[in-house]
């Protein structure tokens, strides 16, 4: 119950942050702008619009997730709101989970708003024939952002917001290059140290590349084998990885002096 109360207040506060609205409005503007591409054939045009729109949702979502999450805990400590809350019958893990779910709800609202506008525009462009396959890509983007929100929130228990911004962005970039780190780890020409280094990076870093599913959706001629199994695994991976990170954050947060 207290987790829900804190999550609700986190969502309420986040939705009043001007910077998040700026990202959201810029993203919505770019999505709408993408529909002015006219010099391609209908099929090419739809492909470009889908690719561009999903890319905008993913990038705007990434900035919103990081900017929101890096301040989750430090802002509460700096403003001393945490003192009055934790002096009430609120367990530290309830507070932390409340902040996390509040941040996640904010990310969901933002992704949902961008997606609704994108879907409406896309359906209009496609002569009012809805393309529900795009929802699968949006679902994957949401779970990628869920993973990123967890990473940024876990770092927010340990480090300052500025350090966290660079750390979370770095983890996102490395995690998005998972195919490259995997290839480097398996490169037989490289020495054992380099292979070991890339193996550790590949298995330790969250695999954000799992969630870039736009290509098969945009190019239906190259379908993913066992599509639902792939999505199921990716979602399960995000939930399990996030749960492990949240346990680490809770353990650290329980011991922390406020």
């Amino acid at each position, binding site marked *: 119950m*207290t987790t829900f*109360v804190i999550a609700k207040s986190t969502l309420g506060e986040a939705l009043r942050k001007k910077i998040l609205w700026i990202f959201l409005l810029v993203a919505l503007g770019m999505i709408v702008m993408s529909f002015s591409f006219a010099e391609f054939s209908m099929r090419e045009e739809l492909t470009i619009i889908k690719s561009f729109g999903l890319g905008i949702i993913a990038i705007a979502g990434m900035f919103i997730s990081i900017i929101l999450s890096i301040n989750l805990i430090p802002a509460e400590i700096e403003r001393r709101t945490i003192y009055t809350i*934790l*002096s009430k*019958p609120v367990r530290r893990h309830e507070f932390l989970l409340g902040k996390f779910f509040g941040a996640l709800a904010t990310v969901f609202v933002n992704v949902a708003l961008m997606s609704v506008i994108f879907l409406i525009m896309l359906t209009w462009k496609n002569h009012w024939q809805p393309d529900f396959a795009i929802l699968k890509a949006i679902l994957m983007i949401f779970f990628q952002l869920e993973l990123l929100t967890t990473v940024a929130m876990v770092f927010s228990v340990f480090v300052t917001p500025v350090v966290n911004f660079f750390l979370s962005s770095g983890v996102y970039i490395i995690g998005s290059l998972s195919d490259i780190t995997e290839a480097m780890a398996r490169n037989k020409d490289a020495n054992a140290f380099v292979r070991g280094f890339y193996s550790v990076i590949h298995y330790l870093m969250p695999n954000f590349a799992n969630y870039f599913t736009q290509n098969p959706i945009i190019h239906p001629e190259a379908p993913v084998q066992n599509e639902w199994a792939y999505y199921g695994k990716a979602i399960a991976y995000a939930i399990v990885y996030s749960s492990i990170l949240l346990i680490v954050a809770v353990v650290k947060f329980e011991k922390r002096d406020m």
Partner: protein
Amino acid sequence: MAEAIRTEGLTKTYKLLMQKEPVSAVSNLSLEVEEGEIFGFLGPNGAGKTTTIKMLLGLTYPTEGKAWVLGKPAGDIDVKREISYLPESPYFYDYMTGSEVVDFYARLFGMSTKARNTKVEELLKLVGLHHDGNKPLNQYSKGMLQRIGIAQALVNDPKLLFFDEPTSGLDPIAHSEIRDLILKLRDEGRTVFLSSHQLSDVETVCDRVAILNRGRLLKIGKLDDLLHGSTIEIRAQGIGNDTIEKLKALSHGVRSEDGAILISVGESEGVNHAIDVIRAAKGQVLSVMPKKRTLEDLFMEIIREVNN
């Protein structure tokens, strides 16, 4: 009478980067606060008052020692249902209205909607904000924020209240109202742990006080016992340093003020002796005034003594 708070050897040290020795914020603090009393917790800035309160609330963990609040270890979740805290210069979510803030804290206690609505109305009226309950906090003055802080601290009808500088930033009328409220809380049988720099407030409302400096407990006791006995203040002029040194030996303190020397002595025999010393040095006695010892006198004496 039962204890509301008990600490035994409570110690908090912090390790700072680039420093070999840890910094001590609170050192070996042992004290007891009885149920139903207003306990003043005094000390200059950096004395360790807020750190002590944070340890009692379970916000910070002691390096050594133990603390019990309402008979249970500090930080116990059940105890938190029966205590409350008003931090110094409190900040709340400023997008919320006054009513929403009080409602938010009431929700943390799992109160029903009906109970919350009644409570919010009652508390806003108590702190004089019933006409401003629908304004967002970013339109509140510092004094109004302090009042909202007090309202959130009373949301659970606490048995024990921790107030850290509750009158900070308030105008004289609000100041007096908060003082009356603290006395009312004591009359209702609640315990108040009051950390404040406003020594006149502490002297007016507290039953017992503790004085802390650099993390160490210097004095603790009933206010009446600590302030017992009045002093007599002799104002003199035209005396040299040798005489001042002699006067220091037979008085509570000697200080200069507006070109005159003020000598505080304890009893009439001491007065006569001091006057004899001044006259022998061909000094001039300007006045002899009885003076009641105040908490401020006691506080300054103790802090000066330690710093010297």
